[in-house]
């Protein structure tokens, strides 16, 4: 082969051109790829497996509002200060989606709120780090709450707190309707009656938040429920449940009650706070929201009225979940210990109204918040959520059907949930 008939200079220039091209492409990629802000490098470069050195934790919470966000941020900051670690508190838009994406993407938050209804699926998928045995004085937590976060004999996480549903009443509207303390509804008929009396041109008597977690209370009051979590049996398509849903539907149809979505609100508390509704059925978390967002609205809290089968309400709980893939598990457990001391639980109670999950904190709580008697009473007879592995989609479908409860056939709603949930449980 003869040598190329090209002057060295030209070849060099051409090479330089190609090199420049390669370099330019590389620069573009590198500038955009490698760069970024400093914060993100601290996030990816987590410290070594907890305990030694400085850990940087990410915490994902589902917040009821600024009050809760701030309280959790403050507590986390206090721990960070004390332990020399870092915590970044993130408020989830959609807890389930963000957790799933985190687990699938291989970088879930280290510590997060985990709702009782989501717990079984994550536990089955081995996404959770079972740390309950490392928590100080774990026997002090209420046993029913501990059971909620135990699957196949393994206790995974400890309950953060708990709350129950009660009836909130707008004092001004109540008085304007000529009602007195004696009129507090104690039966379904009385509830329908006062809702009617409270309904005016620009206010609806009762606002109901969306989904099974509100109307479910009526099922309990009528002696039924969606499922029996203990036996794993789906118990939706019973006459008692149909009767309870029918009651709720009649309330909606009468116009004396409405779903919060129909009142331009995201949840019952918002409809209540903006005074589009005179009453609502919400849990303890409404306290924080009312105090922060709607401080001018006076209200009282009463126990939910009894149904044909007696008293009934729903009880909710969440645990502090720790990811099985977290590199900072021991630091995270340390943080959980910090967040679940009786003192800290009382602080959370103070900030956003949830009830302590430790028995050691209960007496202080009852003494400090006499106005919460209705919520506390619910702790006695509250029904926990359906927490069977695999029924998540069936429950989500139930929620979506309940959105149009007003026009739905209640037997069909219950029947399709029964079918879907049974198929999921097998």
């Amino acid at each position: 082969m003869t040598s190329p008939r090209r002057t060295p200079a030209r070849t060099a220039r051409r090479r330089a051109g190609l090199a420049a091209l390669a370099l330019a492409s590389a620069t573009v990629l590198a500038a955009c790829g490698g760069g970024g802000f400093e914060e993100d490098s601290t996030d990816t470069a987590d410290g070594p497996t907890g305990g030694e050195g400085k850990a940087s934790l990410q915490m994902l919470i589902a917040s009821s509002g600024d009050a809760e966000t701030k309280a959790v941020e403050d507590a986390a900051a206090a721990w960070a200060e004390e332990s020399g670690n870092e915590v970044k508190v993130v408020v989830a838009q959609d807890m389930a989606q963000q957790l799933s994406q985190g687990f699938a993407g291989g970088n879930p938050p280290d510590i997060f709120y985990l709702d009782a209804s989501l717990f079984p699926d994550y536990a089955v998928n081995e996404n959770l780090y079972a740390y309950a045995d490392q928590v100080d004085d774990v026997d002090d937590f209420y046993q029913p709450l501990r059971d909620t976060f135990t699957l196949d004999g393994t206790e995974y996480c400890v309950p953060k707190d708990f709350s129950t549903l009660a009836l909130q009443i707008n004092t001004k509207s109540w008085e304007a309707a000529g009602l007195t303390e004696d009129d507090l509804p104690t039966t379904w008929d009385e509830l329908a009656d006062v809702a009617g009396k409270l309904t005016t041109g620009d206010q609806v008597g009762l606002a109901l938040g969306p989904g099974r977690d509100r109307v479910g209370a009526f099922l309990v009051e009528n002696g039924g429920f969606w499922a029996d979590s203990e036996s794993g049996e789906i118990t939706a398509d019973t006459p008692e449940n149909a009767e309870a849903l029918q009651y709720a539907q009649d309330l909606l149809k009468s116009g004396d009650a409405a779903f919060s979505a129909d009142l331009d609100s995201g949840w019952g508390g918002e409809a209540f706070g903006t005074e589009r509704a005179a009453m609502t059925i919400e849990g303890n978390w409404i306290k924080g929201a009312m105090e922060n967002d709607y401080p001018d609205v006076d209200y009282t809290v009463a126990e939910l009225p009894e149904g044909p089968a007696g008293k009934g309400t729903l009880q909710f709980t969440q645990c502090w979940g720790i990811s099985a893939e977290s590199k900072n598990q021991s630091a995270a457990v340390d943080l959980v210990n910090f967040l679940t001391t009786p003192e800290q639980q009382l602080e959370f109670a103070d900030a956003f109204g949830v009830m302590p999950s430790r028995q050691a904190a209960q007496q202080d709580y009852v003494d400090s918040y006499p106005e919460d008697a209705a919520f506390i009473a619910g702790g006695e007879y509250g029904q926990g959520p359906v927490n069977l592995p695999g029924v998540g989609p069936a429950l989500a479908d139930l929620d979506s059907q309940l959105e149009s409860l007003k026009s739905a056939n209640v037997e069909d709603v219950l029947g399709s949930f029964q079918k879907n949930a049974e198929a999921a449980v097998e």
Partner: protein
Amino acid sequence: MTPDGRTATGSVLATSSVSSAPTTGRGGPGPRRTGTGRRRLGESTNLSGWLFVAPTLVVLGLFLLVPILMALWVSVSDWTGKGNPFSGDTGFVGLDNYKVLFTEDALTRQDFMTSLRNNFYFVLLVVPAQTVLALFLAVVLNQSLLKARGFFRSAFYFPSVTSSVAISLTFLFLFTGSGAVNSLLGFVGIDGPNWFSDARGLIHIVGDKLGVWSIDSPPAALTDSGVLSLSWWDWLSGPSVALCVIIMLVVWTTTGTFMLMFLAALQDVPQDVVEASRIDGANRWNTFRAVTLPHLRPTMLLVITLGLIGTWQVFDQVFVMTTGGPSKTTSTPAYLQYFYAFEGQEWGVAAAMAFVLFLIIFVLTGLQRFLFRDKDAIAEKRAVRARNRRRRKALAAEGGEVR
């Protein structure tokens, strides 16, 4: 290669698409192009050609081709979202995930069919509406007697360039129960619905108003039987009130782009033919139908194709405004696959949904192109013939000669 030669080539080829023209020049200067030299040069152009396209190929390959193959694997696997889908822990399940979508009477099929139904009604309303409205606005804007056309053109086009998220938020506000739209309706005495929480289907409502059936107690003949996990009553719902808001939003945002396309095509309509037709005594409407419309056919095909592709992909608005509710009536396959994967951790089923969606878009656009192509050619021929006839007539009338 003389300078003259170069100029000549340049001017001749300036507008042609003959890209092979530089063959002569590529070799660099001089008559010393030996066989060896040419091969060397060929290699070096090969090299630079590949270098030039390499980044594009890498990115497209890595983020388009490879991902599609990976998703194809996931769609036949039982991956639950934990760990690596390509490790030994993930099993091959054949077509099970696809069977879940079509043959198993359970919640997943019901969800998927519901989303297909929603999207079907969505396409059915959006594509004709945006096409007709875009054409209408383009025709009006094409009237040279009107002033300030540039301003109006920009006004109609502006929503197309803004963020779907920003627009979705704005529509959320406009359509809340006590929002701007219901206030407007209130002026004319209409009590507007609670748009985003109203799951009633449009056909259901119309039937109810006409007395065909009652929404509260639908005819048993329709509710008691059905196909693919939905009753006939559910299939026949029409778009829900909430979905109608998204329909309006999408028509509102997409019309501008399509209008520009029609406008460009309208400006190419030969004015002499239009005038000839008018001289022949045809009125505006007939001229439009006989001359303009056939001329717009290729653009029409394009607009409908782009419309079909776009409307089967609606995602942003659902994600921001409704997340599929109320009662799943705004769920679309594009959103559902996302939801099943990222929220439900059912990656296999979700990937299967994505491929079914791909197939739907592919088949529909292919079908639509095929149907239009025939008519197109026929119409073109007819139009040419008519034009020639008219031109001949016109020229004859003027005493000219037919060329």
